[in-house]
């Protein structure tokens, strides 16, 4: 697999739990498949968005949230296969330079949910190098759990755009969020402060 610095192979569910444990009201947009399964498994949060379709669009959606709410930290959780589908968004994010946007890429070098077919990151493609080349200077491999804790110990409201790539194993997510896009959208918007989304909650 293409990396630099020989990062330790980590576990997506474990890192997601560590991330969620550090968050307050930051928005988290999780991409299709195991990225959003493990976010849900870590304990649903009011500011979580589970992307059930539209492979590749987690980072663009997160960019939109970051633009609409510049005071709120916004985090995208995305897999390597999904990111490869929309590499251009790294250039857009580098150009727009939202200070409150962090992209966390779970890289296991496979399309895990469709049968573990290998992706380009199992061969020559190094996502950190791609991101730096796209213009996201603040891009790095996650060396190990302690390094991840250090990287996520900040608030996410400033200092971005940041891209972190964790080399992970092939353990799939164990539970899935409800397949109800309207519900997901309603709860996410309520969590982001939209008054109307909560009007029937008593």
């Amino acid at each position, binding site marked *: 697999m293409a990396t630099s610095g020989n990062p330790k192979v980590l576990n997506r569910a474990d890192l997601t739990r560590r991330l969620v444990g550090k968050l307050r009201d930051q928005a988290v947009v999780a991409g299709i498949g195991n990225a959003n399964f493990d976010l849900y498994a870590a304990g649903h949060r009011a500011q979580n968005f589970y992307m059930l379709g539209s492979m590749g*669009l987690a980072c*663009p*959606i997160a*960019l*939109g949230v970051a633009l*609409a709410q510049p005071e709120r930290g916004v985090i995208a959780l995305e897999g390597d296969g999904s990111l490869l589908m929309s590499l251009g968004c790294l250039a857009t994010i580098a150009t727009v330079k939202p200070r409150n946007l962090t992209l966390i890429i779970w890289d296991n070098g496979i399309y895990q949910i469709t049968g573990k077919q290998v992706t380009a990151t199992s061969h020559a493609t190094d996502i950190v190098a791609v991101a730096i080349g796209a213009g996201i200077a603040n891009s790095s491999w996650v060396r190990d759990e302690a390094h991840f804790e250090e990287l996520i110990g900040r608030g996410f409201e400033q200092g971005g755009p940041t891209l972190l790539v964790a080399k992970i194993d092939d353990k799939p997510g164990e539970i899935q969020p409800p397949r109800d896009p309207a519900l997901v*959208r309603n709860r996410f918007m309520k969590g*982001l402060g939209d008054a109307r989304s909560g009007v029937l909650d008593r």
Partner: protein
Amino acid sequence: MTWSDTFLAALKDNDVRLISYVPDNVLTPLIKGATADNYFMSVNATREDEALGTVAGAWMGGMRGIVMMQTSGFALIANALASLIVPYQIPAIMVVSERGTIGEFNIGQVLVARTMRPVLDALAVVHHTLTDEATLRFVVDRSIKQAMLTQSPVVFILSPLLTGGNPAGPK
């Protein structure tokens, strides 16, 4: 007022601030007007589905937005429409400069233009073909309001009858 000034004024009247676009000759006056105006936040996207994702995220965060694309760009967004915008009930606004008709020189645009309305109809997405400056403001203003009030996307298709078509034109 030019058609593009009128269109931008209707966006402003409806608090549509974010403009995410992939450029096109016909859209030039719209994009130029938007980027020159500090009211709008203009983001050049690398692909039209990326633009749609950005507008979807922004809307959920409380900022209305529009995607500007040309006809061939519309061909790229079927999955984003069908698996994000429509099922999540995002009132994304889209404006498509209509290539492929009334003077097109590129057969690719002709073929994509044939897919546009059937795809939108199949997904039950409201669309209006804008041909006439006189009714432009009324249609755009009220259709944006309808989109917001019904949590449904809307597509404005800019006919060559309105815009004059691609300046490169048939030769």
